[in-house]
């Protein structure tokens, strides 16, 4: 692709990630032992 000669240079750091990255799968809640009241 012909886009001509460079005119200027700069940096861009977006505030939000422009790529829609994979959402990490939510871990299923682990079963837990209910705490029994002390006798």
């Amino acid at each position, binding site marked *: *692709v*012909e*886009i*001509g*000669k*460079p*005119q*200027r*240079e*700069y*940096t*861009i*750091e*977006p*505030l939000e990630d*422009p*790529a*829609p*990255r*994979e959402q990490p799968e939510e871990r299923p809640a682990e079963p837990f032992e209910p705490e029994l009241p002390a006798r």
Partner: protein
Amino acid sequence: MSGAPDYTEPVIGWRVWFTRDAEGKTRLRSLFHDLCWPVREPLTAACLRRRLPFRRRDHLAPAASCRCGIYATSLDRVASYLEPGWPPGRCDPGDPVVGRVLLWGSVVECEQGWRASLAYPERLYVPRPSTTGRDSRAARVALDLTDYGVPVALLEFDVADDIIAELTTAAA
């Protein structure tokens, strides 16, 4: 990148891709390099110019003094890459896809476009010749490309100029 950035909004440009089959799914491929665009993560530029012994040292892409980086340009300039039979001499370059692309990181702004270090498609249009039926290959390509997580649309056309006219109207 070091220090404060100059801008916080990505540049939006236009470009054309070909498609390539990768593990049974259609993926975007750069026009001039056999380079697959990753799904759901940015493409990072690297200088792919042939490394010859007398060539200067490797550098970060894009370098203003080189021609490297991820390219984008204006909509009217991408039309020539959508003509049937382009590029000449290639048997099966794959299906062309046109779309808007976000560019960020280090950017070299040129007279008619940009070269950048990071890029990701913003929306994709899959041209479908109006002579083909509804169950065309284009429809399957478009479906696969939804994996990129951006809007994908089919675009019926007779000649490449139709695509540009349609997209110009949509972008207005």
